[in-house]
């Protein structure tokens, strides 16, 4: 209560203070016969000087921000395309900061210099075609350069990934992320949102999942009424339902029947050999782990609303859109350890954040991202199981050591490509 009073008091006092100021002003104006529409010389000079002062203040503020925060921001771009983006961004910054200083200086200096002086008359200067042509052509030329460089980078970034790239799917939902690795065949299993069940939260398509989803639709499962249960309820003469409840049930039934038809069609046309694609996928829920130097082709999918996969350090951003798959390819250049060293910061971790408003906990929707050196990455792989429960690196006992050594060598070559860059 006390604070409410204080707030009220402050507002009232503020208004009173201004009222008194105005009153004083009014009285002096009356005494000196000052009219508001005639701006006294003193006021003009005051404001013109303020213009210059403000300009200096603005520049000092800007330069201070530049020095203090301009170079610490995100650290170096940790991907190949990200370094192109940064280079272009810096070039653009040089250009726009130059324009910012040049035009603001002209504006404020003129505002200061050409303040009305007693007896002076303004220079009548309605137009000058040559001058106007200059400031049409020069911006056009600068922009042409910006456009050409920009589109070149854009094209490089957006061309389709080659087959060498490792495919990973990033799945988004309110409010979290899940990664699905394509496994040894580098081919992701199919999915369909209609297969979503508590046992299959990522809606992955296998024969077993189709059957269980269909079964769930028809027969039902705990906490979920199936078509048969609803039909029984509606047809049972011993149950008397209020009308709106009955209507709601009918609607529910209609919806389920439609879904069931879709699932039946899916079941009829499904080719069982596709199971393999899904079965050797690896689902990782707590973090996205990448190998240094590897080319990645990420695909994105959303369960509910639009999210946006934003990897600030990679300079990667792509919306995840329900009903649509989106893609982004990149090559991480620095392992997490490299980055720690570069930023001289022991606590550094890469991060994946949601960057499209998606509900109350939007701000907490994030996932840890790690870029590992070859040995670490191989060890990490070894600790993970595929969708059907076998080892990710599913080598027979006899050739395991040999195959793993082969893989490590491959990873080392991949990582070494970066060092050369």
């Amino acid at each position: 209560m006390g604070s409410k009073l204080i707030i009220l008091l402050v507002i009232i006092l503020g208004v009173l203070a201004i009222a008194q100021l105005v009153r004083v002003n009014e009285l002096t104006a009356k005494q000196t016969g000052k009219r508001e529409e005639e701006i006294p010389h003193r006021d003009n000079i005051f404001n013109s000087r303020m213009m210059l002062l403000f300009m200096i203040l603005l520049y000092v503020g800007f330069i201070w921000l530049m020095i203090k925060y301009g170079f610490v921001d995100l650290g170096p771009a940790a991907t190949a395309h990200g370094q192109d983006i940064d280079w272009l961004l810096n070039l653009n910054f040089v250009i726009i900061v130059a324009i910012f200083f040049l035009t603001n200086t002209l504006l404020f200096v003129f505002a200061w210099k050409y303040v009305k002086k007693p007896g002076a008359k303004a220079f009548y200067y309605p137009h000058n075609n040559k001058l106007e042509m200059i400031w049409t052509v020069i911006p056009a030329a600068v922009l042409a350069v910006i456009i050409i460089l920009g589109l070149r980078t854009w094209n490089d970034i957006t061309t389709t990934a080659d087959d060498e790239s490792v495919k990973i799917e990033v799945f988004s939902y309110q409010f979290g992320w899940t990664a699905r690795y394509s496994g040894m065949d580098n081919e992701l299993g199919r999915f369909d949102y209609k297969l979503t069940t508590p046992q299959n939260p990522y809606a992955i398509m296998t024969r077993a999942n189709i059957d269980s989803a269909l079964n769930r639709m028809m027969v039902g499962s705990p906490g979920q009424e199936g078509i048969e249960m609803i039909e029984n309820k509606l047809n049972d003469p011993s149950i008397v339902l209020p009308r709106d409840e009955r209507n709601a049930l009918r609607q529910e039934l209609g919806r389920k029947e439609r879904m069931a038809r879709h699932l039946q069609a899916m079941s009829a046309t499904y080719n069982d050999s596709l199971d393999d694609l899904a079965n050797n996928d690896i689902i990782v829920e707590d973090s996205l782990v990448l190998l240094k130097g590897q080319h990645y082709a990420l695909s994105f999918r959303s369960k509910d609303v639009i999210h946006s996969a934003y990897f600030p350090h990679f300079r990667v951003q792509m919306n995840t859109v329900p009903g649509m798959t989106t893609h982004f390819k990149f090559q991480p250049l620095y392992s997490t350890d490299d980055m720690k060293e570069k930023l001289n910061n022991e606590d550094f971790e890469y991060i994946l954040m949601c960057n499209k408003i998606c509900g109350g906990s939007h701000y907490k929707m994030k996932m840890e991202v790690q870029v590992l050196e070859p040995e670490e990455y191989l060890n990490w792989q070894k600790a993970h199981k595929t969708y059907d429960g076998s080892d990710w690196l599913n080598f027979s006992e006899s050739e395991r050591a040999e195959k793993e050594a082969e893989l490590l060598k491959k990873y080392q070559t991949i990582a070494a490509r970066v060092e050369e860059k």
Partner: protein
Amino acid sequence: MAAVAQESNHGHDHHEESFVSKYIFSQDHKMIGKQFLMTAIFMGLVAMMLSVFFRIQLGWPGESSDFLNVFLGDRWAPDGILNQDMYLGLVTIHGTIMVFFVLTGGLSGTFSNLLIPLQIGARDMASGLLNMISYWLFAISSIIMLVSLFVESGPAMSGWTVYPPLSALPQAVSGSGMGMTLWLTSMTIFIASSLIGSLNYIVTVINLRTKGMKMTRMPLTIWAFFVTAILGVLSFPVLLSAALLLLMDRTMGTSFYLSDIVVGGEMLDNVGGSPILYQHLFWFLGPPEVYIVLLPALGLSSEIISTNARKPIFGYRAMIGSILAIGFLSFIVWGHHMFVTGMNPFLGSVFVFTTLLIAIPSAVKVFNYITTLWKGTIVYTPGMLFAIGLVSTFITGGVTGIILADSALDISVHDTYFVVAHFHVVMGLSAIFGMFAGIYHWFPKMFGKLMSNRLGYIHFWITIICGYGVFLPMHFVGLGGAPRRYYDYSVYEGFNPTSAEMMMDLNVIISIFAIIGAFGQVVFFFNFFYSIFRGQKSPQNPWKSNTLEWTTPVKHVHGNWPGELPTVHRWPYDYSKPGMDEDFIPQTTPLMEGEEEH
């Protein structure tokens, strides 16, 4: 379309009007303009308070603030800590009100109504009735928008762009229930208001210009309002369709924007729609809307800068050309909001090209303003200060647009605070400055009184310092990788401490400037209302201006001019013309023997 002198069919001016027909259901454009202004000022006050609330949260997250509890109550700020859902609600409604109700309805509604008939020499708008309907629809939509703040499940919470599926699914966020329904209803009515108003402005400008008021003799304000109205007529219907389809998805089970969704454990049977379709429709309106907001501000400042520099606006025809070019280009740039939606990259390239082209007419406008100041004799009325402030923010906000328009760079900064800073400077500050400039400059015309200059100066310097103080650091927060619409940036800790530290430091600075700036506006509110009642009486032409509105009597008469309509002989920018005694020559003054027009 030659200039048509309007017959004096409103000649029977001086009959007594009842209070209701004079102040409430008025069909007089001057009164309607004032009604728009009052409503907009009130809405602006609300939107500003909302921003103070969420700035408190962003500056000092997790800290209890009685201030919040006083205003938002225990439901939305228990223990004085803002609720995370309501945070999104505040952001959403702040954006909606500022963009549509203050800067579209308020700016264009106020000044188009006030100035179009007065500056082209017409007795009133083409249709007084439609004009009145336009205002009342605006008022109703404003009320509905405000009411949505008090709904139990909260106001719309999906950002001012209300992207589906978030905005379509009450299961996804509580604000997408009743709050969103009210939002859509309000916007539908608002769009109707805006369309009726725009049609009226267009017809009036084309048909009701007084004798001699050729298109090339119109003040730039009128050109700006005219092109703004055309943009509104062509783009708002698309937003209307977007809103209606969304309404249908929400209530009738259609699937325009919905497909393959599992939300809150429920599998929806919507298949085949596309959320991206909504974005295309919404953003088709978006960029024209930016210029619906900006062009009137630029138009007003052209007039004010020329008058107070006592110089003709430099490059009048180039200014008209830029207004037209900006207006045209704004229709083919909408994809620059959608570079990272997974849109076809080639389409993206096209939008990069068209978007960056807009920088050219914008640059022309800036250089023309600066050249207008060159060798002028500047008189610092508060209006002039704000007009110069506008040019500065238009530059500062405009240049960062070059980065955002470049699709490759946009990947890095899209939806970060860099974007928030960019559009708040170029569209928010510039348009607000234009609006303040207009209010200070035409206050004598509206109320027959003068505002206090001293308070105007205080108001301006507080506003520009705080404006830059808020948005300049915000660019750096964005470059540090801070996404927009985050309730609390302390989630950064542990991931990237340097960024987190910087973000928190800067957020405190920003919040302090925002709060000072917001309370600084009290100076304006006070000056405004005090001057209406107690201000000095204004002379007929206080700023020694050339345009026609200053040839009308100070006390408003129905039909604007008591006698015949004025005849126009020259363009409106003959200031300090050589060989003339006065440093201004009203448009009604015939050309002298052997005088060149300009």
